[in-house]
């Protein structure tokens, strides 16, 4: 048989319909309740080939339960999971042909690194020579060639997780699911592995669903992020969209720790909304919510605020704290006027730090100011 550049389709992968039409994964109205508590509520999404999608949410948001239902470790009450055009909703995990990377690595302790990675290939009856080639390639790519003969317990956490990653992608599953794979690692290692995961994903064009509660991680890795709360998807968008045009106060707060400035809509035009803040100033925002006169909150990320001379901006206040964080400086400003109580947080380039107690004005690009009805409290 002539060797080709293309990986020969493996039995399970082709059974999963890799060759078939359509998206690698679509989830329709998934629902799961645990003793009356709804863990996942009508979650639907479609994921394109080669896409890196993250479920982002705090614990209890339903992100892991959704992942488990896609993997088959947990059966949904209703809804369906379709992998490559094949409905797998009621199939056992081993029949879905997906890859899974666990937070706790879960390498087989009685096998070496090499054997761990070869294991899924052996299950698929891949020939010895082919196994050797592919395990070798995969370990090489992850920089683990020197570790092939070691046991998992002889490796560091970061190395173990890289082996787990190799084991999940060596058989080229149509979708790889990752459940907080970096959760057990320290910050520095996490950053390093994030880059590596991203590199490998892009190099191989892998389709990945990733679960995390770390918004920074989600922003770094993802093509699209599904922000989840209380079992629902609040917003499913690119990181940029989520960051700049959050659809709910929760998204604004969760992703960017937004400042929420209370006020009411003074004027609405097609191009923008003018919000009269309780502190007296008027801020120009994206046209989004609220009829004229309605109580709203204007949301703006700390990094999207800029300083200007006092009284030129939508808000004037005094600088309360200045904290250097590497190349950034975090500034809090106490707004003057009105009964405003909450401090406004800013992130500025380190060179432009104001002095403590200085009177400053605040401005923002209207495109970065969102307006939400003042009914629910974000965060």
């Amino acid at each position, binding site marked *: 048989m002539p060797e080709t550049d293309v990986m020969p389709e493996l039995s399970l992968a082709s059974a999963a319909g890799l060759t078939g039409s359509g998206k690698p994964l679509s989830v329709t109205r998934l629902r799961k309740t645990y003793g009356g508590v709804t863990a996942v509520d009508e979650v639907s999404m479609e994921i394109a080939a080669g896409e890196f999608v993250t479920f982002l949410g705090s614990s209890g948001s339903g992100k892991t339960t959704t992942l488990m239902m896609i*993997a088959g470790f947990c059966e949904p009450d209703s809804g369906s999971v379709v992998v490559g055009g094949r409905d797998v909703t009621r199939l*056992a995990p*081993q*029949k879905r042909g*997906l890859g899974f990377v*666990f937070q706790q690595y879960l390498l*087989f302790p009685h096998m070496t690194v*090499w054997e761990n990675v070869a294991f899924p290939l052996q299950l698929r009856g891949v020939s010895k020579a082919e196994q050797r080639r592919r395990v070798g390639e995969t370990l090489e790519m992850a920089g683990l060639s020197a570790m092939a003969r070691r046991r998992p317990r002889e490796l560091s956490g970061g190395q173990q997780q890289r082996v787990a990653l190799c084991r999940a992608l060596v*058989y080229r599953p149509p979708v790889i699911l990752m459940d907080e794979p970096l959760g057990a690692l320290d910050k520095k290692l996490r950053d390093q592995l994030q880059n590596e995961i991203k590199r490998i994903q892009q190099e191989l064009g892998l389709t990945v669903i990733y679960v995390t509660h770390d918004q920074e991680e989600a922003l770094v890795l993802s093509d699209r992020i599904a922000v989840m709360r209380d079992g629902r998807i609040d917003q499913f968008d690119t990181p940029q969209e989520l960051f700049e045009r959050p659809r709910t106060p929760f998204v604004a707060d969760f992703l960017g720790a937004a400042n929420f400035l209370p006020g009411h809509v003074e004027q609405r035009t097609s191009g923008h909304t003018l919000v009269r803040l309780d502190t007296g100033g008027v801020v120009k925002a994206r046209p989004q919510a609220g009829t004229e006169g309605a109580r709203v909150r204007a949301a703006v990320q700390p990094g999207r605020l800029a300083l200007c001379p006092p009284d030129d901006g939508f808000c004037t206040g005094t600088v309360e704290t200045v904290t250097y964080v590497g190349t950034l400086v975090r500034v809090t400003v106490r707004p003057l006027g009105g009964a405003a109580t909450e401090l406004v947080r800013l992130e500025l380039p380190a060179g432009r730090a104001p002095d403590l107690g200085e009177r400053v004005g605040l401005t923002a690009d209207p495109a970065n100011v969102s307006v939400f009805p003042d009914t629910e409290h974000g965060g």
Partner: protein
Amino acid sequence: MAGTALAPTPAPAAPAPAPGKRGLGRALSDRRTRFGLLNATPVVVYLLILFVYPIFSTLMLSLKGEEGGFTLQWYTDAFQGANLEILLTTLRISAETSLLALVVGFVLASAISRLKPLWAGLAMLVVVVPHFISALVRTYGWIILLGDNGVVNNALTDMHVPGAPVQLLYNEIGVVIGTTAVMLPYTVLLLFAVMKGIDRRLLAAAASMGAGRITIFRRVYVPLVAPGLVNAGVLCFILCLGYYLTPALMGGEKQTMVASLIDEQVMKQNQWNGASALGIILLLLTFAGLLLLRLLKSAGEALRNRGTAS
């Protein structure tokens, strides 16, 4: 030897690993070592009197001729004729019992390890409690169950099973059943401890990459339990070798085991030398079992490493 070591030697190059006395002297000058030795003394004395001395005198007895003097006669006797047969029977019954106790223990332990903690606790109690009841009582229990007019045979006869009543007592079946029941708590406890320590999510991980139930069992579960299987098997075998009560009560003529033979030689023939030789042989067999355990472990390790090389 001691003299040379203690003599002030013109120290050559590097201080080589200190020769005996000198190392000991230095070790003794350490307060912690002296304190440790002091603490160990009662145990050492206890073991010397109650363990080393009896074994040593047994050894001497087994090497003493009928009119005094040194002889290996008792050992050659032990490996001849009926005695040899009894030795082989002992090994065979021990092996059969260990195997059965392992299989039943594996099934039981893996079932218990999957139960919720409360139920698992109760199940373990059921497995272990018989161990605290006199083996004599338990053995009579088995005799009642397995006799020609016992519960089992009556049930078989009522169900018109061909060949019923089956002889389940005073033969090898009886001995193996009875001894297995005695050994079961050990295998279940050992295997349960190992199985409890297995991260069940490993099995889920195997499933996630496409392994079916049988493959998961064969390639992941059993290899992870294997060290426990070896330990439990060898322990069981060693315990069976010297086991007396059940084989004596539930076996027939052909199931005489070494322990019974020793009993007979001492009680009926007043033949202490021969009995001593048999005791020493049992002891050596036990050591052999422990050695086998180590060999199996290192063989397993080597096998795995070879698997990696390919």
